[in-house]
C-alpha cells in the first residue's frame, strides 16, 4: 500500500515541469486557510479561476481508495471532466454512490478497481457514500480551473505555476457552516503571492480521522 500511495504523488510531481514549460511568467500562490478562530484549517479546497478565458490544459485524473472501510483521501479536488478511479483495497465489497446533483452515480458492489472510471463533468460538490458502510464518507470538489490545491495540516495550500494575471480565488470547505458558500477573493498575480482566508466552520461537521 505504501508504494502505491507514493506513486500517486510522484505522478503529480511529474506534471509540474510540464506546466512550467507552458508559461514563462508563472508565479506561486500560497494561501493560509484558518477557521474563524484563526486556527489552521486542513482539507480546505483552494482554487483560482482566471478572470478571462481559461487556458486549455490537460486534465489530470484522480483516484479515491477504499481502505479499512474508509475513503482516502477524505477530500479530493479535480478539474471538471476529470475521471476518478475507486480502487477497493479492502477484502470486503463496497457500493459507492453519490446522490449529489453535480454527479449522481453508483458503483454496485465490487472488489478491486472498477473497469471504468467515473467522469465528473459538472462543477460542484460530490458527496460520496457507501451503501454498505454508512460511516464511509468522502468529498470531491469539481472545479472549472486547473489551478487548485488542498490545505495541509498547517492550513497552507500552495498553487504553483500560476500565470500572471487576474484571478478569483475561491476557498471551499466541506464543514463550512453554510455548505453552499464559497469564499471568493479577487487578486492579480504578478509574482509569488501570499493570501489568507478565514472560513466559518461548523466544527461538529468536521470528520475525524
Amino acid at each position, binding site marked *: 500500500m505504501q508504494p502505491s500511495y507514493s506513486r500517486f504523488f510522484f505522478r503529480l510531481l511529474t506534471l509540474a515541469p510540464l506546466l512550467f514549460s507552458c508559461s514563462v511568467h508563472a508565479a506561486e500562490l500560497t494561501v493560509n486557510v484558518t477557521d474563524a478562530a484563526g486556527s489552521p484549517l486542513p482539507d480546505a479546497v483552494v482554487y483560482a479561476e482566471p478572470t478571462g478565458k481559461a487556458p486549455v490544459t490537460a486534465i489530470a485524473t484522480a483516484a479515491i481508495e477504499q481502505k479499512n472501510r474508509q475513503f482516502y483521501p477524505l477530500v479530493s479536488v479535480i478539474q471538471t471532466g476529470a475521471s476518478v478511479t475507486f480502487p477497493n483495497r479492502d477484502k470486503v465489497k463496497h457500493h459507492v454512490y453519490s*446522490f449529489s446533483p453535480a454527479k449522481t452515480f453508483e458503483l454496485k458492489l465490487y472488489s478491486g478497481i472498477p473497469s471504468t472510471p467515473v467522469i465528473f463533468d459538472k462543477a460542484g460538490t460530490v458527496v460520496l*457514500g*457507501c*451503501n454498505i458502510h*454508512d*460511516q*464511509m*464518507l468522502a468529498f470531491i470538489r469539481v472545479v472549472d480551473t486547473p489551478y487548485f490545491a488542498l490545505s495541509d495540516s498547517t492550513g497552507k495550500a500552495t498553487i504553483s505555476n500560476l500565470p500572471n494575471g487576474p484571478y478569483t480565488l475561491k476557498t471551499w470547505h466541506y464543514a463550512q457552516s453554510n455548505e453552499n458558500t464559497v469564499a471568493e477573493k479577487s487578486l492579480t498575480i504578478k509574482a509569488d503571492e501570499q493570501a489568507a482566508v478565514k472560513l466559518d466552520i461548523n466544527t461538529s461537521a468536521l470528520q475525524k480521522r
Partner: protein
Amino acid sequence: MQFKSLQSRMAVIFLTLILAIQIAGFLAIKYSINKNSRAAVNEQLEIGERVFLNLLKQNGDSLSQGAKILASDYGFRQAIASVDYETILSALSNHQSRIGADIAMFESSATGNLTISGKVSHLEASPIVDKLIQDGQQNGYAQSFAIFNHQPYQLVAVPVKAPLTIGWIIMGFQIDDTLAQNLHKLSNLDVTFISRSNGSGWSSMASTLSMSLTEKLLDKASTSRLTEFSMGNADYGTRYVSIMEHGDESLVAILQRSIDEATAPYLVLQRNLLLLTILGALVFAFVIFYVSRRISQPITELADTARKLEEGNFAIRLSSTREDELGKLSRAFGSMVDAIASREQSITRLAYWDELTGLPNRASFLRELGIALQQAQDQHEHLSVLVMNLNHFKQINKVLGHTAADDLLKGVAQRLQSSIRQESDLVARLGGDEFALLLPKTSVENAMRVANMLLQKLETPISIADQSVDISMGIGVASYPQHASSQEKLLGNAEMAMHIAKAKQSGAVLFDPSFDISSQGNLSLASELRQAIAGNELALYVQPKIDLQSGKVSAVEALIRWKHPQKGLIFPDAFIPFAEQSGMIQLISLWMLAEAARVEVAWRQLGIEAPMAVNLSTRDLIDQDLPNKILALHDAAGLALGGITLEITESSMMDDPQRAQHTLERLSDMGLPLSIDDFGTGYSSLAYLKRLPVSELKIDKSFVLKMEEDESDRKIVRSTIDLGHNLNLKVVAEGIESRAVWDLLASMGCDFGQGYHISKPMPAADFPAWLQRWQEPQAA
C-alpha cells in the same frame, strides 16, 4: 354466671385475657394488612410507572428502528435525491403500515418540503416537526410527544443520510386504547390518558376504565392530584405520570389500582384468621372451664366436707389420687377429719363412759334416763332409778390401798352388771363409789324387789388381790311418776333415799318426799324444827341402864322426842334423818347436851347419881369446835365433867376416822367418858378400836334380841363381851326384853344392860319417880 365462685372468676379472667389478646392481634393484623396492601398498591403503581415508561421507550425504539430502516433504504434515498414526492409518500405509507405506526412524515433538508402520511395537517405538523428535527440534529435522533387534532402521539425523528443528512423521517404512534390495554396487560393497572391543548379543558384520550368511571376520574383529576380516592364504590391508589408538558399542552397518564382488589386476598386471610380466633377462643374457653373446674371442684368438695364435719358427720372418706397441691390439701384434710373423728370419739367416751369400770358415766346415765323418761311419759309406763353407794368405801380405800379399791369398784361394777334382769336395764357409775341402775317399765314394788335382790347378791364377798372383801351398800330408790318427772330430780331423789339408807344402815330405802330438805314440805319441816328447838317443843326422854349383876341403875341414855303442837309426839325416826341431811342435827345435839346438863344438875340436887349418855352424830364428830362447846355448856349449867357421857356409833366415825379420832381424843382428855354404840354392825378394825379413847362398848340390840334362840348370836355376844373386857372396856347390852336374857348376859359377864324389860324410854321428868319405884324392890 356466678362471679363469686373461684371457677367462674378464673374462667372470666382468663377468657377476658385471651379475648383481649386475640382482638389486639386481630386489629394489629388488620392494620398491617391495610398498610401492606396500600404499600403493595403503591409499589404496583411505581412498577406500573416504570413499565409504562419502558413501554413508551420500547415503542419509541421500535418507531426509530422502523424509521431507520426506511432511512437507510437506497431506493428511498434515490427518491429523495430525485425529489420524487410521489414515491417518497408511497414509501412512507408503506413503511408506516409495516411497523404499525399511525403517522409517518418526511422532511427534505434540501427543500424543507414536508411529506405526510397520516391524518395530520401540514399546519399542525410543521412546527412540531421542525422542533423535533432541531432536537435530532444534536443526537441524530429525537423523540417527543405531540397532540394533533386533540389526539396525542408519540413521535420519533431519524435523519436520512446519503451519507450526509438529506432529510428526516418522523414516525409516530397514537396514544390510544391499544397502548392502555397493553399497559394493563403488563402491569395489571388501570390506565387513563388525559390531555389538554390550546386552552381547552382536560379530556380523556384513552382508558381501560369504563366510560362512567373515566368521567368520574376526569372530574377528580381535573381539580386535584389525590393519590387515593374512591370512585364507584371502590378505593383507588392513583399515580400521575406526566408524559408531556409544554406550554398549554399537557399529556398525563393516570395509573390506578383498586385497593379493594389488592386487599381481596388479604381479606380471605383475615376472615380465616377471624375464624381461627373465634375457634381458638372457644377451645380456650372450654379448656379454661375444664381446668378451673378441675381446680375448684376439689375445693368445693372440701367445703362440703367441712360443712358435714361441722354437722358432726364424721363418716366422710376423703381420698384423692391427685399429685398436685389440691391432692395434698385433700389428703391433709382427710387425715384431719380422721384425727378429729378419733378425738371426738375419745372425748365422747370420756364424756359418757367411765374409764375405770367401762360403765356409762353420770352424764351418759342422765341422757339415757332422759330418753327412757320421755318414753315412759309417752307410753304411760313406770320407771325406776336405783342409786347405790358402798358403805365405808373411804376406809376400804385407806386400808387396802388405791389399786385394790379400784379393783373393788370394778368387781362391784361386774357384780351389778351381771345382776341386771334385762338388756334395757342400765348400770352406770355416777362417780366415786356411787352406782346407779336404770329400770325402765318398772314399778316401785318391782324396783324394791330388785334392790333387795342386789343387796342379796352383794352379800357374797368380792375377791380382790387374793383377799375376800365383804361389802354392803345403801340403795336409794325413786320412781316415775310417783317421785319426779325430770331425770335430774328423779336421780336426785334416789340419791337422797340412798343417803337415808346409808344413815339408817337399812339396805334399800324408797324415796319419801320428807327426805327432800329442799322440797316444799321439808322446807316447812326445817322451819318447824328450828321453831321446835327455839320454842322448847323438843323433849328429853331417858332410858335407864342398869348394872346387870346388882340391878342398880348406873346411868341413863338420853333420847329425843318432838312434842309437835298439832301432830303430837313425834319419834326421832321421823325427823333425825332429815336433821342429819340438813345439818340441823348439830343444833339438836347441842340442845340435847344443854338439856342433859340442865336435867343432870337438877337430878344431882335431888341426890340422883345417874350420868346421862348423849348420842353424837357424824357431823358433830367432824366439828373441831365441839369440845369447847361442850366445855362451855358444862360451865353454863354448873355441871362437873363426868355428868354427861357421849355415845358414838361405829359408822359415824367411819366417814372421817382421823378427824373423828382427833375429836374423841380431845373429849376424852377433857374427862368425858365415851362409849361405842351399835357395836358389831360396822367394820371398824380392832387396831382402830384399840386406839380409840373409849371406855365402853354397846352391843347392838340385833344380836341381843335373838340370843336366847340363836347360838351364833350368843357366841357373838359372848366374844364381844370378852373382847371388850380384854380391851379394858365396860360392855353394855341393848335390847334386853326378858329376865332370861338379863340372866344370860349376866352369866356371860356383861357389865350393863338396857331394854324394855328394864324400862321403856321415859320423859326425863318421870325418871326420879321411876328410880324410886325401881329401887324399892331392890331395896326390898
